[in-house]
Each structure stands twice: as C-alpha cells, then as structure tokens.
C-alpha cells in the first residue's frame, strides 16, 4: 500500500469510529444482557413493593397455631395483590427480550445430567396447572425442586419470590401468596 492511501485509510477509520466513541462518552457503556437484567430486577422490585404494601394490610401472614389463620392471610394477600395488579398479563415481567435472555441462560444448564435428573423428579404436569397471572399455584400439586445450579445462574430474587418449573415452563412464583406472578413458556426446551 502506498503511503498516501495508507494515510487516507487511517483518516477514514478515525472518522468512522469517532462518532460512536463520542456517543459512548455521553452514555455509560452497558452491554445488552446487563441492561436486560437490570430491567428484570426493576420489574421484580416493582412487584415486591406491591406485595409488601399488600402484606402490610391486615390480616398479616404471621406465625400462628391456627392453620386457618395461615389460609385466610394467604387468601387476603392474593386478593390485595390481585386488586393492585389488575390487568397484569404474561410477559409484564418476563418481557420478550428478558425471556429470550433467560432461555439463553437456562438451556445449556438444563441439558446437564444432574439438572435433568432434578427437573424430572416429582414434577407437576403442565396439564394440572392453570397458568393464570395472579392465579394460585394448585395446593395439591408438588412444587418441583429448583435445580441449585440453575438458581445460581439466574438473578437473585427478593425474599419469597422464587423460580419454579412446570414442565418446560419457568414460573415466577410468590411463595407467600402462592400465586403465579409471570412465566416463560418453553424456557428450557
């Protein structure tokens, strides 16, 4: 390459890269996964705030000798959350972009031998569970054990919000209200 062409190419390259660098200087460098995870966390925290507000209302879910009190407090919580989240729908927390990220995180781990073994144990069948947002997780069905390696790969959740599996669906479950907050269809297959 002749020196003049070499110099011109260098100038062009500088010009081509100058604008993006200027933009990046104005905006903090955030990769897209981190942005999606931050978005997910914000949406979950928003739910947690609703739940806390609902939980603070009477009758609270607290230690008791009466199983009836637990059931009534749980039911009351379901109603208050339902009212506060009226109109909530699948995908409000697991947006399509967040769901795609979760699938990408989950699928390699779900193929691991030990993870597969846990997922196939005592799992509730999809047919037995109506996946309704704000709806109950059926009391008579077992809760599939969440493989620890998967839990360690996913973002940590606030207390009493948990990841559970129903067949290949990933459920976001409220453990206090025993309700389904959101879900990702075919998260692991």
């Amino acid at each position, binding site marked *: 390459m002749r020196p003049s062409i070499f110099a011109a190419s260098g100038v062009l390259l500088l010009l081509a890269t100058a604008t993006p660098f200027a933009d990046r200087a104005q905006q903090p460098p955030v990769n897209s996964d981190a942005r999606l995870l931050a978005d997910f966390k914000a949406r979950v925290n928003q739910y947690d705030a609703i739940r806390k507000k609902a939980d603070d209302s009477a009758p609270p879910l607290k230690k008791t000798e009466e*199983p009836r009190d637990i059931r009534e407090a749980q039911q009351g919580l379901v109603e208050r959350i339902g009212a506060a989240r009226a109109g909530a729908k699948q995908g409000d927390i697991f947006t399509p972009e967040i769901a795609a990220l979760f699938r990408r995180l989950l699928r390699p781990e779900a193929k691991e031998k030990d993870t597969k073994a846990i997922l196939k144990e005592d799992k509730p069948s999809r047919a037995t569970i109506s996946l309704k947002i704000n709806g109950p997780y059926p009391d008579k069905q077992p809760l599939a054990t969440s493989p620890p390696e998967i839990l360690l790969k996913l973002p940590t959740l606030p207390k009493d919000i948990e990841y559970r599996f129903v067949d290949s669906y990933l459920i976001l479950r409220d453990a206090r209200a025993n309700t389904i907050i959101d879900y990702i269809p075919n998260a692991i297959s």
Partner: protein
Amino acid sequence: MHPCRFRNALVLFALVAATLAAAQEAALPNAADSLKFAIIGDSGTGSSSQYAVASKLAESRGKFPYEFVLMMGDNLYSGSGPKDFEKKFERPYKPLLDAGVKFYASLGNHDNPNERFYKGFNMNGERFYTFRPKLGVRFFALDSNYMDKPQLDWLEKQLAASGSDWKICFFHHPLYSSGGAHGSDVQLRTLLEPLFLKHGVDVVFAGHEHFYERIKPQKGIYYFISGGAAKLREGDVGRTDLTAKSFDTGYHFMLIELVKDTLHFQAITDQGRVVDSGALQRFSDVDKKKFAGITSP
C-alpha cells in the same frame, strides 16, 4: 422325632433366635443428661400407615422420653388447608403434642412453604433455620427444594458461628442414597458437602426416599435417610457401596440419643421391631480437617 419333641425344639430355637437378635440390637443408653430425639420423614399422608407409625412413636416415648421430633419434609401431602393440618399432623401426633413434645419441620417438595408460619412446626416463619436445644448441640434445618445463594450464605455464616457444637443438618433430599427412584442428589451435594466439611458437620438426616438407609460415613460425616413414616417404596433401595444398612419392607421412625461424643440410634418399624441400631463415635476435629483437605501449618 416325636411331634411333641419337635414342637419343643422349635420353641427353643425361636427363643434362642429372639435372644440373639435382642443381644445384637444395640439398646439406647437412656442416660439422664443426654439429648434424646426422634425422626420421622415423608409422614403427612393422613393414612392408616402414618397413624400406625405415630402410635408406635408415642408408645416408644414411654420407655425413651425424647424431647422433640425432627421432620424430614413432605409433612403435608396433597394440600395444606386447616383439615390437612388436622388429619396429617395434629390428630396422629396428638398424644405427643399434648405431652409437650416439640416438632421441628423441614420442607419437602410436597409442602407449601407457608407451613413455616404454623407454630406446631417450630420453623419460626423461615424456610431454613437453626436451633440449639441443649448446650453443645446445634441443628440446621434446610430447604433443599430451593437451595439459592441467600440460603447458602446463611448456612455458611451459621455453621461458622456454631463453634465446637455437634452440628446436625436435616433436610428433605439426600446427598447420598441407594434409591432406585431418586438416588443421590449430586448437584445439592456439590454445593453443600464443601460447607459441611469446612465447618465440621457431624451428621445429616434426610427423607424423600420412602425407605430407611444408613450410609457408610462419607468424609467423616454420618448420613441417614428416614423417609418411611407413612409412605413406602418397597424394593427400591438397592444395596450399593454406600449402604451400611437399609430397610424398605415396612414403615419406620428413628430414635436418637447423643451422649457426649457418641450418637446412639435405632430404626424401628410400625410393628415395634428394631431394624437397625448402633453407636457412632463423632469424628475428631483432626480427622475432619483431613477429610476437608485442611492441613495444619
């Protein structure tokens, strides 16, 4: 042989066999100042088998006055409404509850985590918790259905703070098992065993498998599976290299006594037959450090 002589010989043989069996069956010391407790696992069916085990459990307290019962999870199958608590817990164990015996529950995959708010399970409103019923002995109840980072961090902190106490963990899924239907939970073991070794856990009790199995000591830790207090999976426990003793042809519960550095145990059927018993010496700190790969400077 004359029929009468034959019958006498049979009676004599039966007597000798029974005496030999009784001699082999290690009796519990029943010492005045020891810690005595019982274990039931996978108990909450509300079936006649649960009631039969519960009855024998209550009867055994007449001779062996244990203070509390550990529950290995699946405390309430198929529902957790008020009637479930009554039929699957309060009624079968009424004589014990009336006598002031405490039950400490861990959660199984058939349990609603809100069982933790029920005072009768003494979980203090938490999925995982610790308690020290006597100076020198500490228990850690874990939720093996949901072993997330907050629980692992909590366990590490609590184990580190527990000093030289006996450290006894109990939870639903067994880390080692010869069960055909479930087997060892390898992933859980990968996470928990290093913590157990690092902090010198002595004994681990689990359920989930509907049989009894005593595992050969693994890296200085004793493991028991006791998940047959109402459910039974006959023929499921294969004899593997892990097995010290197993039993899967009847329902059972366990009685435990800690006397200084020795754990005495019995596994007893709903018919009152002792199917396993013995005394296990707690591993020394030096041995535990060796198993954990910690070398002295």
